């Protein structure tokens, strides 16, 4: 067994062990099942609530909102990263702001966003976008900084124009760091939007979880929480696997 497989096996065993322990604690009554459903109960609740179709609209709305915010954040983040890389003076001026960006709790601006755009999907998109785009820009900058100058010279020797150099040389050269940015952007967009739906929204998965909590509907709440957890983890794991595959190819392992 390769070391990588052994690590993966260990990781899965750890999670399975934690889930089994939680199941045992809940089933034995050590943890009050009214407070926390056993994992098997959460899974059953998740299947039931999704199969009922009662939250299909919310699922679609949340995922659509995340997709729009994430797509805009990736595109804008790459553009900003490329601009800052090309303009060192601007970068020096903005560096402290970018470095402290995530020290600011962006959710405090949510009421302002609602006042500006109304109680609809736009404030959520702005929140998800604002949460994600700076991570993408920073990762883009890292990727561009790490692109060896000799590869740009090689592009010139092959007489590539600026666009083809960007697409055929710079983009693939920076792709491991860009993928890191994409992974972070998706996570931040998800967090921003689900949290936004918790605070002030009339629909979406975050709203439904908060509504179930307020209504003491533990089965729906835990079912939806598990659903969000599984989707976010699956998306992150898929991007992480892609990123690791690209990095392994570069390192020859």
């Amino acid at each position, binding site marked *: 067994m390769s070391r990588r497989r052994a690590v993966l096996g260990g990781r899965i065993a750890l999670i399975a062990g934690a889930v089994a322990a939680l199941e045992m604690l809940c089933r034995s009554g050590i943890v009050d099942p009214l407070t926390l459903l056993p994992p098997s109960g959460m899974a059953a609740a998740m299947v039931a609530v999704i199969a009922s179709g009662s939250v299909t609209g919310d699922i679609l709305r949340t995922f659509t909102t995340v997709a729009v915010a994430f797509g805009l954040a990736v595109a804008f983040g790459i553009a900003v990263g490329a601009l800052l890389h090309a303009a060192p003076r601007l970068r020096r001026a903005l560096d402290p702001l970018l470095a402290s960006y995530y020290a600011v709790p962006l959710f405090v601006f949510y009421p302002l966003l609602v006042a500006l755009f109304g109680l609809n999907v736009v404030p959520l998109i702005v929140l998800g976008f604002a949460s994600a785009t700076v991570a993408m820009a920073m990762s883009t900058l890292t990727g561009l900084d790490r692109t060896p100058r000799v590869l740009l010279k090689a592009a010139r*020797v092959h007489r*590539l124009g600026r666009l083809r150099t960007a697409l055929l040389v710079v983009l693939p*050269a920076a792709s491991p760091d860009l993928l890191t940015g994409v992974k972070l952007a998706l996570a931040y967009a998800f967090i921003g939007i689900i949290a936004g739906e918790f605070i002030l929204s009339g629909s979406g998965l975050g709203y439904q979880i908060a509504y179930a909590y307020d209504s003491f509907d533990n089965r729906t709440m835990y079912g939806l929480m598990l659903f969000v957890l599984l989707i976010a983890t699956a998306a992150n794991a898929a991007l992480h696997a892609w990123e690791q595959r690209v990095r392994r190819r570069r390192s*020859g392992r």
Partner: protein
Amino acid sequence: MSGAAAHARLTGVTRVYAGPTHVHALGPLDLDVARGEFLAVVGPSGCGKSTLLDVLAGLAAPSSGEAWFEDRRIAGTVPDGIGVVFQEDASFPWLTVADNVAFGLRRAGLDGAEIRRRVEDALGFMGLGEFARAYPAQLSGGMRQRVCIARTLVLAPRFILLDEPFGALDQQTRLLMGDELLRLWRRTGATVLLITHALDEAAMLADRVGVMSARPGRFIAFVPTGWPRDRDSRVVSAPEFGALTAQLWSHLRPESLRAMGQARA
């Protein structure tokens, strides 16, 4: 361009880096490289050897003077027919060896069968046939440099510029890579300009060695080696080899001392 015999020519070329430090890196210098010639250029560290290569390749414009290749003025872009091999590893790490070598051919719009034929030929010539599907990170430094040479060779350049291509390799690998470079030169009939800091490498490989002064680099001597075209690394055991490297060093030593003085200043 006057003087049709020269394949590439520099006339009165200087290169000055403007700005607060204002570095006069090169020249004024003149250079004629004959068609099919193997010219090596040696000089002290920081004398502008790589700048000279950049000007000849079209990667940097001269501050004054003119650069010519095949009767066309080199003006800010790399002319068709020029191939460059750099000291640093310039292989594309996201592409396999075969895709690296095919990179320029795909950009040139050749059909698939022709690309495959030329790539296989270049890989075979450089001894990389069995590594076609490997990624550069899986290869040694010497093999990665061979990938870069194959990527240049496959485009059939008429003028090959090499900027200390074996600088990062161990001595034995450098000798063997030198043999491969000579084989490549004989097979393609291309003109070759090799920038190197190794006097023995220049003396072994070139028809003629240009010796540059300390910065701003100018040519202070051209030393013909007199080797037959059909030579290889075994010339290092010839009695003339020692005399040749000694002659190069006698030109270079005062300039190297001057360059060290510049560095200390």
